[in-house]
C-alpha cells in the first residue's frame, strides 16, 4: 500500500487503516514495507555489523600493543591466520580494512542514516509512510545482501580484502601484490556495488518523501533539523555515491577484463604486466569524490539528531535555526569540493592542492557556527540530562576536539608530515567515528520508545554506558595524536622495525587498554537494548515532552502512523519554554508547545 494513495484517501477514508490486508509474519517482520519496521531492521543489522567491526578493532589493537605476542583469542577467532596465536601480517591488514569498511559504510551510513531517516522522516513530517514502501524494502534487502557478502568474504581461503578501506589500486587490483586482492577483493567490490544501489534507492526515497509528503502546514522552515539533516544527507549521497560506483566498476574491469584505467607500467614478481596508460591517481580522485562527502553523510544525520535531542532536553529552542539550516547546506555543498585534501601528496599538481586547502579550511566556518549554536542552546536551559542528552553533549565535545585538528590536516603544508600517520587516525575517529556513534546512541536512547511500542531503555545502564564510553574515547584517541606526531605511519603491522618508535610502546598499551574497556562498555548497551525490547518499562506517549509529530502517534504501531487524520502543523518544532508577555508559558503549566497546537491568541510566530 503506497503512502501517496493513503494521502489521497485520507479525507474520506481514514478509517480504512489497519485492516485492509492481513499481515503474515513474513510481510510484517521480514519483507515489511512499513518504514518503522524497516528502520528497526536497519538498526539491528547495523548494530550487529558494529559489533563485528569493534571486535576487529580490539584484535588489531592488541597486536599493536603487544606485537608478536601469542593470544589464545587470536587462534580461536583467526584460526590459520594466527598460527600459534600470533597474528599474521596479512590478516592484520585485512582486519583494519574490513573494520574501516564496516564501520564507515555498514554501521555509520546504513545503520545511522538508514535507521533514523526511515523512522523519522515520515513520522516527523506527518506522512503515512515513505513515498515508496516497496523501494524502501528493496533498499534494506540490498543492504542486507551486501552486508552478507561482506561477511562471507571473511571466510575466503586467501582472506578478505586487505588493501585498506580505500582499496587503492594497484595493490587492490593485483592478486599477486597481496593475497587479499584475489577473491576477497572481488567480493568486497561486489558488496560495495550492491551497497551503493541500496543507498541510492534509500536516498531517492528520502528526498521524494521530504519534498512531497509533508503534512499541511509543514513548510520547509518548520521542519525539525533532523529532517533537514537527513534530506541534505540524501542529496549528497545521490550526488556522490554514483561516482564511487564508477570507481568500483572500473576497478572490477581492470581486475577482471584487463583494462588499464588505474594501472600502468607495473613490474611485479619478476614480470612486466601489460597495463599501460592508466593512473592510480584517477582512482583516488573518484574514490574521494565520494569518500569525503561520505564523512558528512555519516556526520550530518548525527548532528541532526543532536539538534533535536539537545533542544528537547534543554527545554529551549535550538539556537539559530536558520543558521543551522544554512550550515547544513553549506557543509554539504563544500563537502563535494574538498576531496583533494586526501591527496595533497599523491602526486597531484600542487596548485590543485592549494585550491583544496582553501575549500577545506572554508568548511571549518559552518562547522564552527554549528558548534557555537549547540553551546548557546545549552545556555540558560533547564537541561534534562537523559542518556540521549549526554551523548549529544558528548558529540559536540568530540566534534570540536576532532574537528580542530582538521585545521592541521586540511592545510596542505602541515599535511605533508602527518599524512597517513596516526594523527589522521586520531582526527577522523574523533570527528566522524566517535561523534557519529554518539549521534547513533543518542538517537537510539531517544527514539527507542517510538521504535519499541513505548518501552524505554534503562537510564542507569545508559549513564554507565555513556560515561565509560566518553572517558575511553578520549583515552584512546587523545594520546594517539602524539603517536602520529612522532611519525608512526598507519597500517603498520608492528612498529618494531624502527628503534625510533620503541618508546611509543607504552602509549600503544595505554590506548589498547582504553579500547578494550570501551568495547566491554558497549556490552552494557547491548544488554540494555535487548532486554529493553522485551522487558523495558513502558513510558508515557511523549516521554521527553517533545514538540515533534512522531510523539502524537499512538504508542502501539499502526500501519499509516496515525489512526485518524494526519495532524496539521501550525508552528515550528522548537517552541520550548516559550512564554507570553506576562511570563506564563504559552500553554499554562506546560513548557512545550507541540507543532500541532494552533497559534494562541496574541501569540506571535517568530520569524526564525
Amino acid at each position, binding site marked *: 500500500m503506497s503512502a501517496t494513495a493513503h494521502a489521497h484517501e485520507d479525507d474520506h477514508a481514514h478509517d480504512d487503516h489497519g485492516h485492509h490486508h492481513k499481515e503474515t509474519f513474513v510481510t510484517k517482520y521480514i519483507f515489511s514495507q512499513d518504514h518503522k519496521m524497516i528502520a528497526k531492521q536497519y538498526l539491528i543489522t547495523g548494530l550487529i555489523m558494529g559489533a563485528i567491526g569493534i571486535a576487529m578493532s580490539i584484535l588489531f589493537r592488541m597486536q599493536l600493543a603487544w606485537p608478536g605476542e601469542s593470544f589464545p583469542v587470536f587462534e580461536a577467532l583467526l584460526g590459520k591466520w594466527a598460527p600459534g596465536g600470533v597474528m599474521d*601480517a596479512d590478516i592484520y591488514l585485512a582486519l583494519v580494512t574490513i573494520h574501516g569498511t564496516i564501520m564507515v559504510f555498514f554501521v555509520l551510513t546504513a545503520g545511522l542514516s538508514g535507521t533514523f531517516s526511515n523512522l523519522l522522516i515520515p513520522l516527523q513530517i506527518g506522512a503515512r509512510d515513505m513515498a515508496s514502501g516497496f523501494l524502501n524494502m528493496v533498499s534494506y534487502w540490498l543492504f542486507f545482501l551486501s552486508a552478507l557478502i561482506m561477511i562471507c568474504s571473511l571466510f575466503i581461503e586467501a582472506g578478505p580484502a586487505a588493501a585498506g578501506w580505500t582499496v587503492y589500486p594497484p595493490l587492490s587490483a593485483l592478486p599477486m601484490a597481496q593475497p587479499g586482492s584475489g577473491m576477497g577483493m572481488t567480493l568486497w567490490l561486489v558488496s560495495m556495488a550492491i551497497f551503493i544501489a541500496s543507498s541510492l534507492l534509500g536516498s531517492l526515497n528520502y528526498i521524494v518523501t521530504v519534498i512531497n509528503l509533508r503534512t499541511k502546514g509543514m513548510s520547509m522552515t518548520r521542519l525539525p533539523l533532523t529532517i533537514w539533516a537527513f534530506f541534505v544527507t540524501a542529496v549528497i549521497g545521490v550526488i556522490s555515491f554514483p561516482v564511487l560506483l564508477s570507481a568500483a566498476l572500473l576497478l572490477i574491469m581492470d581486475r577482471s577484463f584487463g583494462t588499464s584505467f588505474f594501472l600502468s607500467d607495473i613490474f611485479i614478481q619478476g614480470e612486466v604486466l601489460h597495463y599501460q596508460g592508466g593512473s592510480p591517481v584517477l582512482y583516488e580522485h573518484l574514490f574521494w569524490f565520494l569518500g569525503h562527502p561520505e564523512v558528512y553523510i555519516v556526520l550530518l544525520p548525527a548532528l541532526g539528531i543532536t539538534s533535536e535531542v539537545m533542544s528537547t532536553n534543554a527545554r529551549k529552542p535550538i539556537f539559530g535555526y536558520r543558521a543551522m539550516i544554512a550550515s547544513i547546506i553549506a557543509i554539504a555543498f563544500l563537502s563535494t569540493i574538498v576531496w583533494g585534501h586526501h591527496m595533497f601528496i599523491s602526486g597531484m599538481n600542487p596548485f590543485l592542492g592549494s585550491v583544496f586547502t582553501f575549500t577545506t579550511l572554508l568548511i571549518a566556518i559552518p562547522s564552527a557556527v554549528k*558548534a557555537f549554536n549547540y553551546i548557546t542552546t545549552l545556555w540558560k536551559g533547564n537541561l534534562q540530562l537523559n542518556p540521549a542528552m549526554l551523548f549529544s553533549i558528548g558529540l559536540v565535545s568530540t566534534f570540536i576536539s576532532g574537528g580542530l585538528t582538521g585545521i592541521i590536516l586540511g592545510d596542505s*603544508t602541515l599535511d605533508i608530515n602527518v599524512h597517513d600517520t596516526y594523527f589522521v587516525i586520531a582526527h577522523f575517529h574523533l570527528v566522524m567515528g566517535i561523534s557519529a556513534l554518539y549521534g547513533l546512541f543518542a538517537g537510539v536512547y531517544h527514539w527507542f520508545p517510538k521504535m519499541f511500542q513505548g518501552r524505554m531503555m534503562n537510564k542507569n545502564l545508559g549513564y554507565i554506558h555513556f560515561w565509560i564510553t566518553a572517558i575511553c574515547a578520549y583515552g584512546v584517541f587523545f594520546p594517539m595524536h602524539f603517536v602520529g606526531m612522532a611519525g608512526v605511519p598507519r597500517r603498520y603491522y608492528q612498529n618494531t622495525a624502527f628503534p625510533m618508535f620503541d618508546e611509543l610502546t607504552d602509549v600503544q598499551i595505554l590506548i589498547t587498554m582504553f579500547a578494550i574497556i570501551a568495547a566491554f562498555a558497549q556490552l552494557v548497551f547491548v544488554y540494555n537494548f535487548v532486554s529493553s525490547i522485551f522487558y523495558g518499562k513502558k513510558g508515557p506517549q511523549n516521554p521527553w515532552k517533545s514538540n515533534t509529530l512522531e510523539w502524537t502517534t499512538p504508542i502501539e504501531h499502526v500501519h499509516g502512523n496515525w489512526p485518524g487524520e494526519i495532524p496539521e502543523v501550525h508552528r515550528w518544532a522548537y517552541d520550548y519554554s516559550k512564554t507570553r508577555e506576562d511570563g506564563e508559558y504559552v500553554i499554562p503549566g506546560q513548557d512545550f508547545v507541540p507543532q500541532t497546537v494552533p497559534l494562541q491568541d496574541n501569540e506571535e510566530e517568530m520569524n526564525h
Partner: protein
Amino acid sequence: MTAFLIIAVLVLVAIAIWQMTKIFELSQIKADNSQIANDKDNKYNGYLLFAFLIFIYGITIFSFWKYTKVLLPEAASEHGAEYDSLMLWSFVIIFIVQTLTQALLHYFGFKYRGEKGKKALFYADNDRLEFIWTIIPVIVLAGLILWGLYTWTTIMDINDDDDPVVVELYAQQFNWTARYAGGDNVLGDANVRMIDIDRANVLGLDEADPNAADDIIVKELHLPVGRKVNFKMRSQDVLHSAYMPHFRAQMNCVPGMITEFSYTPIYTTEEMRQNPDVVDKVKRTNAIRAKRAAKGEDNSDPWEFDYILLCNKICGKSHYNMQMKIIVESEEDYNKWLAEQQTFGKTMMASAE
C-alpha cells in the same frame, strides 16, 4: 603477563559497573522508577559533566607532560623550520579554541542542569552573536590559509636552481633503491619494461641512453648537507610513499608516473646525534632495549640515531618494514662516498663479461 593484565582490566571494569549501578540505585531508592531523568539524575550527571571537563584538561596535560618527548626532534631541513612554526601556531589556536569551547560546553551542562519548576530562557536567535562567531573563524582561517599556501607554494616549487643533487627514489615491495644522476647530473631514461634482472638492470634503465651510463644505484641514501636535493620518485608495482619525517618531507610513489619532492638538509647525521632531544631519546630507547636484552628478547641491540626513509602508503605484507637509511654528511664525505660507488655503465659491462 598480558593475559593477566586483560583479566585484571575485565575484573576492574566489572567492579566499576557493579559499583556504579549500586550508587545509582542507592541514589534512587525513593525516587520514581521511570526511565526519564529526574532532578537527582540531572544533579549527578551535571556534576559528572563538570568532572569530565577536568578529565579532558587532565588527559591533555598528562599527554603533553608524558608524551611531548616522543615527538619528532627539530626539523633537519631548510623548509622544516617554517613548517614547524606554522604547526606551532596552528596548535596554539587550536588549544585556545579547544580550552574555551570545552569549558563552555561542559560548564553550561553543569550550571544549567535541570530542576523541576525551573524555567529555561526562550532564546532562539541573535544575529549579532552569530555574525561574531562566523567572522572570527573567517579571519583566523584566512590567516592560516594564506600562511599555509605561501609555505606550500615555496615547498612545492621544485626547480633546478642552486645546482641541486638529483636523486631517484625507487620503490618496490618491500624495499627502496636510490639512483644518483652521476657526473652529468641527469638521470638516464627508465621504464619498468626495460628491467632485466639477469643482467642486473633492476631499475629498468635505458642502456642506450648516454645519461644512464654514469648513474649510480645504491641501497643507502647519502645526502650532502646544505645542498638542495631534488627527489624523483618512481614505483614499480603498487603505491608507496616516501616519508622522511625528520625532514618534514613526504611524497607518494606512483606506478606509471614520476613524482617529485625537494628539500635542503641542514644538519648532518653526526650533528643531529648531538641534538639534546635526540641524545635523550637515544638514551631512553637504549634503556628499553637493554631491558629487552636482559630478558633475552629480540630487537635489543643498542640503537644509534639515523635519519630514516619509511614507506607510508599501505603496500602489502611487509609494509611495516620497508625502510632505507639516510646519511647526511659533509660535501667532501659525500663526494668521497659517491666516487667509491660503481656506475650503471660499469655494472652493465661487468654483467656482459
